[in-house]
């Protein structure tokens, strides 16, 4: 073990900031990161064991115990659950004879639940080591388990590869793109490097003006003006600057970056290169979520091909002195790392905890240098803007939300998948396209977004009205709104990094009270409590997770008051409906071997 760990650390020059990569390799090679291994890594990197353990314990894909040779992770987001994900998990449990969260005695298999794999358009899904399995059925799972027991390698489980680059020899995934509608900016055919060529002929200041004219806003969901961000980074006095691409698409219901990474990797890297030229950067990082690690070999090959074609690396595009290269940083299963400052922490080999702001990443980001962090789609748009012009881009969409947007639609509709449409289309328009005639509720922007009701389907998808990073989940009449809310809260409780109290504790309280509502044990004043607590969490939390985690509760109270109303009860006698004296006495009756003189009416007969 010692020699293997030492050689892994050496490969990363014993660099403490590359701890994520080191741990990922140790985890892969030794199937776990045991205390002795942490000790060794710490010694090798010159840090304390606690620092290593802090990182190991933070990420879902690292484990202190040795895991099985084959790790099966069944996706458990709400769409997968509605598609039968729970039953799929049960079949795995039966077939492998393993409880969820355990490893078989022979060390062959580990079975786990994971919050979101990014495959809700082809649910239910699971991940077997790095291989993604989609559209699972009971029969298919039985077959998969049988083949795994025979010794089939996970990657050989794939029988039919998906469309487009999913069949590329370096991807070979069962995943389908499900591009249902290609718009005029991203999913239409795009010329290679036209944006980069055009950009390199102009001065960075002109590019910033072009970007600002386009009105491009961040595609991850927050909608910050990209031009303003790049200008802020360019205006800093610094010796180095960094460009980071946020490909940590973790918001349940979002999978459009998966499609872009598969089909528009070149365009995305082109956009990053343009960003590097514009703000003056020589190094970039693609932060790829661990769940998408199946795309990594392909992305590496795209980077390599670009180096060979002179559009990445030294003197890019023949421009003397413009050097820029990119490395891929793999994540390890942490939703919070989609938050830019947490993502930077992760790239630095730290726990994926958000940083205090200010200073903002554009002033002091990766390793303390000004850093531009943008979404995959944002970089793709930037490249197209440099090719076609800001005015062209601005001609799509609305005033404040220009351009087209990729919407990932999933749930109760006939045509789930990715739709490229101009910002500002109505929800109803989108529902018509995805063929969802019985839609009763739509969750826009993922769990952290807003749940709207049927009377609100005329609302528009754009920053002015309903902002979204792409996630649109459709729910029919058959779905239980409060089950969905409860599930979203479970997700936030699980994914809170635990740093600040309002988010760590508050979300647990929210969930408990929603459970109480579901049991019919709440009164009107419990709604006031939920609203008040939700507001407190949103206002006092440290980062976006806590700012938005009460949204499932707050938006459903607002938009689905009747769902709550039917479950609320009035109790005139001043007792709390949730307090059950009989249940509270049960244990005591058993221990004392007698009944209650006060609460058992037939006490004397006993």
């Amino acid at each position, binding site marked *: 073990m010692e020699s293997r760990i030492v050689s892994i650390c050496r490969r990363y020059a014993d660099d403490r900031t590359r701890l994520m990569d080191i741990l990922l390799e140790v985890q892969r090679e030794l199937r776990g990161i045991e205390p002795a291994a942490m000790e060794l890594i710490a010694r090798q990197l010159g840090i304390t064991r606690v620092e290593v353990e802090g990182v190991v314990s933070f990420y879902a894909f690292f484990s202190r115990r040795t895991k099985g040779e084959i790790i099966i992770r069944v996706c458990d987001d709400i769409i997968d659950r509605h598609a039968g994900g729970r039953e799929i998990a049960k079949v795995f449990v039966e077939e492998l004879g393993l409880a969820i969260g355990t490893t078989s005695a022979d060390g062959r298999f580990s079975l786990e639940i994971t919050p979101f794999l990014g495959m809700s358009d082809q649910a239910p899904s699971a991940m077997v080591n790095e291989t993604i399995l989609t559209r699972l059925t009971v029969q298919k799972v039985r077959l998969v388990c049988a083949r795994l027991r025979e010794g089939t390698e996970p990657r050989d489980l794939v029988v039919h590869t998906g469309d487009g680059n999913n069949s590329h020899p370096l991807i070979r995934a069962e995943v389908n793109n499900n591009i249902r509608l290609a718009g005029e900016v991203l999913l239409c055919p795009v010329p290679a490097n036209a944006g980069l060529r055009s950009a390199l002929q102009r001065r960075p200041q002109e590019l910033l003006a072009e970007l600002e004219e386009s009105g491009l806003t961040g595609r991850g969901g927050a909608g910050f003006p990209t031009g303003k961000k790049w200008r802020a980074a360019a205006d800093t006095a610094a010796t180095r600057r960094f460009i980071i691409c946020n490909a940590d698409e973790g918001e349940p219901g979002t999978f459009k970056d998966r499609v872009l990474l598969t089909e528009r990797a070149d365009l995305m890297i082109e956009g990053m290169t343009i960003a590097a030229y514009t703000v003056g950067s020589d190094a970039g990082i693609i932060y790829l979520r661990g769940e998408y690690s199946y795309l990594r070999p392909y992305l590496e090959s795209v980077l390599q091909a670009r180096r060979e074609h002179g559009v990445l690396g030294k003197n890019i595009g023949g421009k003397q002195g413009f050097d820029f290269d990119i490395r891929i940083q793999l994540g390890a299963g942490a939703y919070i790392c989609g938050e830019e400052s947490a993502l930077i922490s992760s790239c630095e080999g730290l726990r994926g905890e958000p940083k205090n702001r200010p200073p903002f990443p554009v002033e002091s980001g990766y390793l303390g240098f000004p850093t531009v962090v943008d979404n995959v789609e944002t970089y793709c748009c930037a490249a197209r803007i440099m090719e076609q012009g800001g005015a062209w881009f601005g001609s799509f969409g609305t005033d404040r939300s220009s351009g087209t947007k990729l919407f990932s639609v999933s749930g109760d509709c006939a045509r789930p998948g990715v739709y490229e449409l101009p910002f500002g289309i109505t929800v109803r328009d989108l529902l018509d396209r995805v063929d969802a005639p019985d839609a009763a509720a739509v969750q826009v922007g993922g769990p952290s977004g807003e749940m709207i009701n049927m009377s609100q389907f005329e609302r528009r998808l754009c920053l002015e009205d309903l902002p979204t990073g792409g996630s649109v989940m459709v729910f029919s009449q058959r779905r239980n709104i409060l089950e969905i809310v409860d599930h979203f809260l479970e997700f936030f409780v699980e994914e809170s990094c635990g740093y600040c109290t309002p988010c760590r504790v508050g979300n647990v309280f929210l969930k408990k009270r929603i459970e109480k509502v579901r049991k019919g044990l709440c009164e009107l004043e419990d709604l006031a409590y939920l609203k008040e607590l939700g507001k407190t969490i949103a206002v006092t939390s440290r980062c976006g997770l806590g700012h938005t985690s009460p949204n499932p509760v707050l938006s459903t109270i607002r938009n689905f008051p009747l769902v709550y109303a039917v479950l609320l009860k009035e109790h005139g006698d001043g007792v*709390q409906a949730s*307090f059950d004296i009989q249940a509270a*006495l049960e*244990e*005591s009756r058993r221990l004392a071997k007698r009944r209650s003189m006060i609460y058992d009416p037939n006490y004397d007969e006993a």
Partner: protein
Amino acid sequence: MKKRIATVSLAGCFGCHMSLLDIDERLLELLQQVEFDRSPLNDLKRFTRRCDIGLVEGGCCNEENVHTLQEFRRNCDVLIAVGQCAVMGGLPVMRNAIMHSDDPLRECLETAYLDSDKVYNPSNQIPNDAALPLLLDKVYTLADVVKVDYQIPGCPPSGDTLWNTLEALLAGKPVELAYEQLRYD
């Protein structure tokens, strides 16, 4: 007409009642305005009629506490949880920390009466007389069991805090407590 006040100590230590006596000579002023109904201060064991204010010290650790509390809720217009135990469970609530046990109540009783080295219990039995109220599975705060109108933290709340609260309540004004009067220790 004088307002009626009832008080009781549930799973508490009577410290909050002692604190009420700490209002000293203001007791006379209080008695000008109120009449005590059921309370350990006058040893009345039952409500004689409906009361305006109920002061409850201590949380609920057994069935009798629950029963008494429900009676207070039924008989008092305004119910006030007084002190840490009533508001958050206080010291007794420490037994709720035994949560990783299959049988937490048994573990609690065995530690208290049998296993601890500090225990002198020659009979080696856990008290279990029919006259003893049954314990609840865990300790509940007052608000867990009934609706509570006001909560005064503190262990105990000072005499001044209690006085200011009662004074304002009786005058029908909002309670204004100085920063140092509202505290949790």
